[in-house]
């Protein structure tokens, strides 16, 4: 698998393209804007964008979905039926499986930052959206939501192996182990 990380102008959110060299297919995780580098990356690797997974529906994660979807016609997977005003091909809930190019993934629901936030877990890595960052967690609008998010992170993310790489919605990557040991919000 090849992974491209794109730091977007829209609130410096991360978008990712996970590509399979064998099938020449690609999965985009979040799409905060339509960045011309997406297509350059796909062309450079001879890949076709077949899937988009949306972690949550804030604009910096779905703002470019409509134009990217219109151009590539991917299968769109999200928790909500209409992320960014686009009809999802498939809606998912906590515990659902997600298959991409033979890679078996799992969806976990981590509400708090937004009610519709889901993380995508593949073996050895997790795309966490704005649920978990290096040294921080997603902002919430109340103490109750913060507690809800904290419980979901502990139950569904911190139970992963320490060496699991966490690709976050903003900022650098991290691992579950690093966050377990150093994230002040998870103590």
């Amino acid at each position, binding site marked *: 698998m*090849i992974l491209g990380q794109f730091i977007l102008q829209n609130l410096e959110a991360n978008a990712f393209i996970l590509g399979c060299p064998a099938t020449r297919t690609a999965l985009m995780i979040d799409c905060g804007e339509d960045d011309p580098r997406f297509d350059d990356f796909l062309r450079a690797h001879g890949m076709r964008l077949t899937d988009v997974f949306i972690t949550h529906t804030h604009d910096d994660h779905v703002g470019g979905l409509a134009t990217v979807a219109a151009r590539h016609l991917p299968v769109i997977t999200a928790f909500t039926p209409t992320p960014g005003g686009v009809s999802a091909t498939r809606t998912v809930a906590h515990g659902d499986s997600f298959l991409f190019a033979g890679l078996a993934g799992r969806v976990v629901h981590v509400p708090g930052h937004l009610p519709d936030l889901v993380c995508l877990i593949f073996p050895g890595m997790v795309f966490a959206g704005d649920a978990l960052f*290096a*040294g921080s967690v997603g902002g919430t609008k109340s103490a109750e939501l913060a507690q809800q998010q904290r419980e979901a992170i502990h139950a569904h993310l911190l139970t992963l192996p320490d060496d699991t790489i966490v690709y976050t919605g903003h900022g*650098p990557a*991290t691992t579950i182990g690093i966050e377990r*040991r*150093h*994230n002040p919000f998870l103590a």
Partner: protein
Amino acid sequence: MPYPDLEMDPSSPTPVAGPGAHCRAARLSGADLAGRDLRGADFTGAWLDGANLKGADLRGATLHLAVLAEADLRGAQLDDADLRRSNLAGIRASGASLCGARLYFCRGAHADLSGADLRGADLTRAIFRCANFSGADLRESVGTPNLENATTEGVQR
């Protein structure tokens, strides 16, 4: 050439780290690079978590998006290094020199930067919760880092 900020291909061989080396996205977790001359090397997005970089010369190195968590950077030279969006959680960097380093948007919970020289560093949007900055020199640094619950006794500003 337009390209992603970071491209990772796990099938790529691990490069040899040296001056000016291209180590983008390299997996160097726990590597022993103590005292090495790594001036100007490109470690963009590299995994250097837990690495021994004690006394290493990383002047002008690019560590954008690199994961340096829990690395030993004591006495390392990082002057003018690009550490934007790097993960510095739990690093041990007491006495390190970071003059003019770019630390924009970096994340350094529990980092030990006691006695570090950060004169002229860019700390815009940097977050160092629970870090140790005691005796660090922040004169002429740019930006106001988040130092919530950090130790800042004797910091020079």
